[in-house]
């Protein structure tokens, strides 16, 4: 049991996809303009990651080495497209904010990375837990970056405005994403090393 739990916490701390593995930077930088956007992107990735990890771990034994990447990509792309269609149909508002970045989950290196490095070598339950761990780690990281950018850039958190005025515009735009990510990465690694 402790072993299973460590699979989840692994994704939060030791192998945090954003601050330690530094994977999936494109959606990280682009969608964290607010806390809500970051969280939604994280949850969408979590969904795909868990499902693709499970399926990859199940099919891995019968997939020959030569074609494993194409097979995994097809599986991942299928889940992403399913997610995209479902979001478009049932939560069109979220789809509108994230629209462009949903298809990009296909090429998010976290997902193929976990399929290759973890799911293909473990059973489905461990792979699912790994997907949950890494997915939550990714979601929390994106939410934190989003919160910081939203406070500095718009003076609000999750759309709740508590600082009047315009905020520092640069933090809503691309340069702010790099700055916030950089400083949070330093902070995260400093705190993580202490332990």
């Amino acid at each position, binding site marked *: 049991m402790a072993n299973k739990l460590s699979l989840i916490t692994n994704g939060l701390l030791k192998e945090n996809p954003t601050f330690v593995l530094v994977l999936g930077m494109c959606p990280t930088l682009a969608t964290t303009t607010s806390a809500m956007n970051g969280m939604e992107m994280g949850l969408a990735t979590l969904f795909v990651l868990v499902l693709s990890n499970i399926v990859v771990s199940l099919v891995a034994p019968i997939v020959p080495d030569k074609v494993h990447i194409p*097979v995994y990509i*097809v599986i991942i792309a299928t889940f992403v497209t*399913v997610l995209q269609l479902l979001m*478009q149909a049932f939560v069109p508002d979220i789809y509108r904010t994230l629209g462009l970045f949903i298809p990009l989950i296909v090429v998010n290196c976290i997902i193929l990375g976990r399929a290759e490095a973890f799911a293909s070598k473990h059973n489905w339950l461990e792979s699912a837990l790994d997907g949950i761990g890494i997915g939550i780690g990714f979601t929390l990281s994106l939410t934190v970056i989003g919160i910081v950018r939203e406070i500095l850039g*718009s003076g609000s958190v999750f759309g709740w405005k508590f600082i009047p005025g315009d905020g520092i515009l640069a933090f*809503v735009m691309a340069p702010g994403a790099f700055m916030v990510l950089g400083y949070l990465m330093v902070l995260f690694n400093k705190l993580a090393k202490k332990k």
Partner: protein
Amino acid sequence: MTLVLFGTCLVCSAILGAVYGITKDPIAAAAAAEARAAIAEVLPEGGEISEAKTAEIDGVKYEYYEEYGGGQTVGYAVKSSTAGFGGTLSLMVGVLPDGTIFNTKVLSHSETPGLGAKCTSDKKFMGQWYGFNKDGNLTVKKDGGDVDAITASTITSRAYALAVAQARKLVKTLDPDATTGASLIKNKEN
């Protein structure tokens, strides 16, 4: 090897086909609801809204909707797009038959967050369209017109005003003798 790849693709396309079939109708319904909501927002309440129609002025085709009430046309909702600062700025513009603007709504834009993107949130900028005079000059004050620009976003404001002007021009050619309009504007502030 080929067999595994073939099998994977086959299963995946079957899943996609099934999901597409399930979500096709809800997606169409959501898109239609969104379009209807945008039209209803820019027109006076209570009328009946027509199907999409198209008209052409200056070589550009526009999609518009007509609203009927009490046996006559009470307004038009025109889809109008111009080049903004960061890309296409697409608006739904509600125009009363005589050319008075009723309301406007941004359908899509790629303006700078915090600057031009305020065209969807700046109350002063958005509020000025309600009841905008049928003979008012639809260019920003900097260019000698009657439109209050968003601070530090003149290009976006110009594009917005131009989109509204296009819609008004279209309505004026559709219905050149109409007089209904200004009376529908109630309690306009300032």
